[in-house]
C-alpha cells in the first residue's frame, strides 16, 4: 500500500515538475548569470520579509543582489540624490502616488511593459492580471507601467472591540457617529488609564496621508476641474474642520505632533478607543510583544461622510532605474518578478504585509490562517472603494503636502480654518508644478 502511494506521489511530482519545467522553460533564469545589481530599499515590513530570501534568488539566477536598506525618513532623500548623481542604482522602492510624476519627468523610471510582455523575460506563471487593477493603474504614468506593487495600502478604522462590546457601542458608520463614539470614550477611565476617543496623525505633511480620506469622504478634492487649488473649497474646508476638531477635542494632547509612531503607540498602549491609520499596522497591533491590545482589535472601513466612504489606496512598488544599463535592467526585472511572484506575495501576506495580488488573499492557506477576517474583508472593501489620488496631482508633491499640512496643524490647534485654507490655496496655486 505504502509503495503504491509512493509511486503515485512520485508520478504526480514528476508531472508537476515537468509542467512547471515547461512553463518556465521559456524563461532562462540564468541568462544574466554573473551580473551584479543594486537595489535601494526602504526599511519596510516587505523588505524585512524578502531580504532573507534573496539567497534563493541568487541561487536560481546566479545574479548577485546588493540590497541597501534605509530608514523611511532618510530613504527618499538618499534615493533622489543617488538617482540624480547617476550612481550605480538598478532598482528601488517607490510610492508611485508620491513620486511618480517627479521621477518620470526626471527620467529615472524605466517602463516595464516591454519586460512584462517579453516571454523570454517574464514567466507566464507570473500572471500580471492577478494584481489588483487599481494598483497597477496607480503605478502607471503616461500609459506606461513603471512599478510592480509589493505593498497594497489603505487606511482602516481600528477600534477596541472589547470596549465596544463592554459599552454596547456599535461600529460608527457615519462621520457623525464617529464623532459621537469618540466623544463617548474621551476621558473615560478604563483599567486605570484615562482614555482618548481616537488618535490620528496630526503632524503636518505626514498627516495628509490620513486626512485625505476625510477630504474625499466630505466631497473635497485637491484641485478643481480647472486645475486650480481646491484647498479652500467647501468640502475640503469641512474635512479640515472635522479632522482638526476630532483630534483637538477627543484625541491625545499635542495632536499636531502625532506621527504614526506616537499614534500607534497610544493605541497599542490601550489609551485610545480608536485609531485611523494604515492597514499595514495590523501586524503591530496584533503582536503581543509590542501591543497590549493584541486580540482586542476590530477593523472597519472609514465611516461615511457626505460624499460616502472614500478611503485612499496607496502602494509601495518596485521600480527600475532608467539610467541603468539594459543588461542590468533586465536582471533587475528578474529580481522584481521573483520578489512579486505568487508564492512571495502570499508569504508576505502571511506575515502581515498586505499583498497586491488577489490570489494571495483568496488562497486557502491565507484564509485558514486568517485570525482577523474583518481586517481582510474591510481591506478588500477599501481597495474597491479606494481613491488612488491620495496626493496632489503635481510634480512637487512634498511641497504641496507641506502647505496642506499647515492647515491641518492650524485646524488641530483651533485656529481659523477658513483663513488658513484660503492662504494655503493661494500658496498652492503659486507653487504647484505640473
Amino acid at each position, binding site marked *: 500500500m505504502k509503495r503504491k502511494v509512493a509511486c503515485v506521489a512520485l508520478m504526480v511530482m514528476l508531472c508537476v515538475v515537468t509542467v512547471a519545467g515547461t512553463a518556465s522553460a521559456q524563461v532562462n533564469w540564468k541568462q544574466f548569470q554573473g551580473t551584479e545589481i543594486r537595489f535601494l530599499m526602504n526599511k519596510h515590513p516587505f523588505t524585512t520579509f524578502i531580504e532573507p530570501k534573496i539567497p534563493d534568488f541568487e541561487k536560481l539566477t546566479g545574479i548577485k543582489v546588493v540590497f*541597501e536598506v534605509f530608514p523611511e525618513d532618510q530613504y527618499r*532623500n538618499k534615493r533622489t*540624490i543617488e538617482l540624480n*548623481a547617476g*550612481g550605480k542604482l538598478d532598482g528601488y522602492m517607490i510610492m508611485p502616488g508620491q513620486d511618480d510624476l517627479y521621477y518620470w519627468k526626471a527620467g529615472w523610471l524605466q517602463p516595464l511593459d516591454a519586460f512584462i510582455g517579453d516571454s523570454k523575460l517574464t514567466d507566464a506563471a507570473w500572471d500580471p492580471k492577478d494584481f489588483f487593477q487599481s494598483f497597477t493603474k496607480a503605478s502607471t504614468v503616461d500609459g506606461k507601467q513603471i512599478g510592480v506593487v509589493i505593498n497594497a495600502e489603505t487606511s482602516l478604522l481600528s477600534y477596541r472591540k472589547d470596549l465596544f462590546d463592554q459599552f454596547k457601542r456599535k461600529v460608527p458608520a457615519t462621520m457623525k457617529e464617529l464623532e459621537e463614539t469618540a466623544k463617548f470614550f474621551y476621558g473615560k477611565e478604563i483599567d486605570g488609564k484615562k482614555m482618548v476617543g481616537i488618535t490620528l496623525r496630526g503632524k503636518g505633511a505626514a498627516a495628509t496621508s490620513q486626512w485625505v480620506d476625510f477630504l474625499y469622504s466630505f466631497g473635497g478634492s485637491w484641485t478643481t476641474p480647472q486645475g486650480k487649488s481646491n484647498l479652500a473649497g467647501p468640502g475640503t474646508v469641512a474635512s479640515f474642520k472635522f479632522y482638526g476638531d476630532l483630534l483637538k477635542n477627543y484625541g491625545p494632547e499635542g495632536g499636531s505632533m502625532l506621527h504614526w509612531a506616537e499614534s500607534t*503607540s497610544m493605541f497599542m*498602549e490601550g489609551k485610545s478607543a480608536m485609531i485611523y491609520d494604515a492597514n499595514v*499596522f495590523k501586524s503591530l497591533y496584533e503582536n503581543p510583544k509590542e501591543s497590549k491590545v493584541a486580540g482586542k482589535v476590530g477593523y472597519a472601513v472609514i465611516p461615511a461622510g457626505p460624499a460616502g466612504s472614500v478611503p485612499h489606496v496607496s502602494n509601495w512598488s518596485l521600480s527600475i532605474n532608467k539610467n541603468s544599463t539594459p543588461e542590468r535592467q533586465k536582471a533587475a526585472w528578474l529580481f522584481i518578478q521573483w520578489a512579486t511572484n505568487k508564492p512571495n506575495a502570499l508569504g508576505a501576506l502571511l506575515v502581515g504585509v498586505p499583498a497586491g495580488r488577489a490570489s494571495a488573499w483568496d488562497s486557502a492557506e491565507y484564509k485558514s490562517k486568517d485570525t482577523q477576517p474583518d481586517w481582510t474583508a474591510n481591506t478588500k472593501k477599501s481597495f474597491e472603494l479606494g481613491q488612488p489620488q491620495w496626493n496632489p496631482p503635481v510634480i512637487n508633491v512634498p511641497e504641496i503636502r507641506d502647505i496642506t499640512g499647515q492647515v491641518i496643524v492650524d485646524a488641530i490647534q483651533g485656529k481659523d480654518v477658513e483663513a488658513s485654507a484660503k492662504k494655503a490655496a493661494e500658496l498652492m496655486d503659486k507653487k504647484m508644478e505640473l
Partner: protein
Amino acid sequence: MAKKAKQTFQSVIFYTGAVALSVPQVFVFAWMIMTGLKTGSQNISYPPEFIFTPTLENFKAVFQQHNFLYYLFNSLVIAGLATLISLILGLPAAYSIAKYRQGKIGIMILLARMTPFVSYLLPWYIIFRYLKLIDTYTALTLTHLIITLPMVTWLMVAFFESVPADLEDAAMIDGCSRLQSFIRIVLPLVRNGIATSAIMSFIFSWNQFLFSLILSGPKTKTVPVAVYNFISYGKIDWAGIGAAATLIVLPVSVFAFFVRKTIVQGLTMGALKD
C-alpha cells in the same frame, strides 16, 4: 564647637548641591541604558517602569541583526583617518600661521567653521558623481575633514603661539634646520595641544551625522546613521534605539572621561587665545 557645626552644615549643603547638579546628567544616561534593557512594550507603558526585569535581547539584536560591529569599525576608520590627515596637514599649517602671523589663512579656517554643513551636501554629491566616490572611505574621510581640519588647525595655532621664539632660534644657532627644529623641538612642546586636537577631532568626526547620512552606503555606514536603522516604516524600536544609543554613547564618553583634563585644557586654550 559652633564653628565645626557650621562647617559640617555648609559641607552638607555643598554636597547636596553637588549631587543635585549632577542628577540631570546622570538621569538621562541612566534612562538611556534602561530603555535598552526594557522590551518594546515596557517602553511605551505609563507610568514608566523604573523597576523591571532587564533583558539583554536588544543589545544582542543590535550586534546580530544590525551589523553593529561593522558600523563601529567604519566610524573608527573614518574618524581615525580624518584625525590623522588633519594632524599631518594641520600641524605645519598652524605652526606657520602662528609664526608668520598669516591671518588670511586663519580667515579661511574660520570660514570653514562658520558655514552650515548642509551647504556642502549638494555640491559634494555632484562632485563625487564625477569622481565616482560615493560610499567610499575616501569620500567620507574627505568630508569629515571639513570639520576636523579647521578644528585641529585653529586649536593648534593657540598652542604654537605659546612657544617662545627664542627656543627655535637657539636650536638653529646650534645647527638645526628649521624643519628639524620644528620636529624635534617645537612639536614635543605642544604635545598637549596635539593630544587635545586629536581627541576633539576624533570625537567630532565620530559624532558626525549629516554627511555620513547622505554620502555613505552599506560599506561605509557609520554609527550615528545606524541609530536611525531602528526607525522603520510602521515601527519605531525604542528599545533598540536605547541599546544602540548606549553602545554609541558610552565608549566615546568613557574615553572622554579618561582624557578630560586634556579636553578642558584644549578648549580653554583655544577659547582664550583666539
